[in-house]
């Protein structure tokens, strides 16, 4: 587990304890913010937007002090940003690194694009089965319509 951070690349202040989410595509940053419900959190949060990234061009970065996200919370993000990396920081050091993994189903996260689907007409949670993890193809449990990544709308 690497805990060496190149100071020249450090574009926002380090945190003592908490979670860092890195490699968020810049255009997905605010979806990630809302998926995690950061706007309702009392913790100190640093949000970096449009940082330079070799891989992504422009990227986003989130640091949440004194909060340790679980794998489940992380995996909710897979639908918008499959390549993000989460680091758990303790005493200014990276003690764990997690890659996001696509879960096998998504409950209450994604909206069905089919206007005739029951989920868009009834007070109920949506449920999708992930049929192709690599290409991010999901199928509505109710109307059975499939969606590709570029069609996916977050609730």
């Amino acid at each position, binding site marked *: 587990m690497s805990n060496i951070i190149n100071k020249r690349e450090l574009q926002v202040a380090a945190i003592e304890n908490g979670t860092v989410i890195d490699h968020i595509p810049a255009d997905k940053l605010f979806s990630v913010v809302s998926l995690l419900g950061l706007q309702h959190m009392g913790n100190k949060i640093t949000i970096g937007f449009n940082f330079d990234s070799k891989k992504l061009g422009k990227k986003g970065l989130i640091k949440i002090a004194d909060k340790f996200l679980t794998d489940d919370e992380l995996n909710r993000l897979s639908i918008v940003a499959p390549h993000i990396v989460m680091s758990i920081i303790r005493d200014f050091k990276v003690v764990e690194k997690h890659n996001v993994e696509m879960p096998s189903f998504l409950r209450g996260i994604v909206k069905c694009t*089919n206007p*005739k*689907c*029951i*989920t868009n*007409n*009834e*007070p*109920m949670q949506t*449920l999708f089965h992930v049929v192709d993890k690599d290409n991010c193809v999901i199928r*509505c*449990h*109710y*109307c*059975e*319509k*499939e969606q590709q990544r570029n069609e996916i709308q977050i609730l």
Partner: protein
Amino acid sequence: MQNMENRSLVTIADYSKEKILYMLQMAAEFEKNPNRNLLRSKVVATLFFEPSTRTRLSFETAANRLKARVIGFSDPKATSSSKGESLKDTIMMVSNYADVIVMRHYLEGAAQYASEIAPVPIVNAGDGANQHPSQTMLDLYSIYKTQGTLENLNIFLVGDLKYGRTVHSLIQAMRHFNPTFHFVAPQELKMPEEYKLYCKEYQIKYEEHSEFTAETIQDADILYMTRVQRERFTDLMEYERVKNVFILRNSMLATTRPNLKILHPLPRVNEISYDVDESPKAYYYQQAHNGLFARQAILCDVLGITLDEIKKEQ
């Protein structure tokens, strides 16, 4: 996601090969004698959130001939859903009264959702463009009865293969029986890519045809006709061109196989010429009649009545 207790029928895809054959045997028992006392103390609710006279009459006849009592509505305008009541509330309310709910809904996934919340079994009588499993069961029963088997048949699907849910469900159900499908459709109504991928996934053989002639259909065991609907076309010129091409005429049947049977989920408009009705190969009216037996089997099965019990009751 369904709990083990729930015996609902939402989609034909839930049926295994064994279950399909079992249900066909059950339907055959009801064909021998459709008038039974099996559901004497039961109440069957038929909730039709969109009108479908044919399907409703078939289910209600099935229930009546098994001596069940039937409650329900055939027009949602007369119900609380027109006042904005949720589907959940309607289903929960009716579950207090009925032992089984047969429902037709204009929204896709409605029956799946109902089956997850209702304490009584749900029978899907059509949810939007999605599933209509009792239609598929009667199609399977008709094929089985006329061909003596479901195995190794040449099945020609003709007409609107893009939106026709009956043909999509038929492909799903026939995947167990090594069929060869022929998809005969105008360009705009071709079989969607996802169903062709489905065929590949399950190693179902298929061929596509854009012409509908006597030659195209000469190897058919089953000719499954569907309606080409005007409202499906974005290009009305295209509709005008194809509407008279995908019509089955008696003259086209001369060179077909002697065991050929012509099916149609009905209602037809003009896709089967009336001179076909007299042909011994026309089977669509009997097919609709078979719906009664298939639906009797479905009602009994969701209520936990077994084939043995049906045979004993005889």
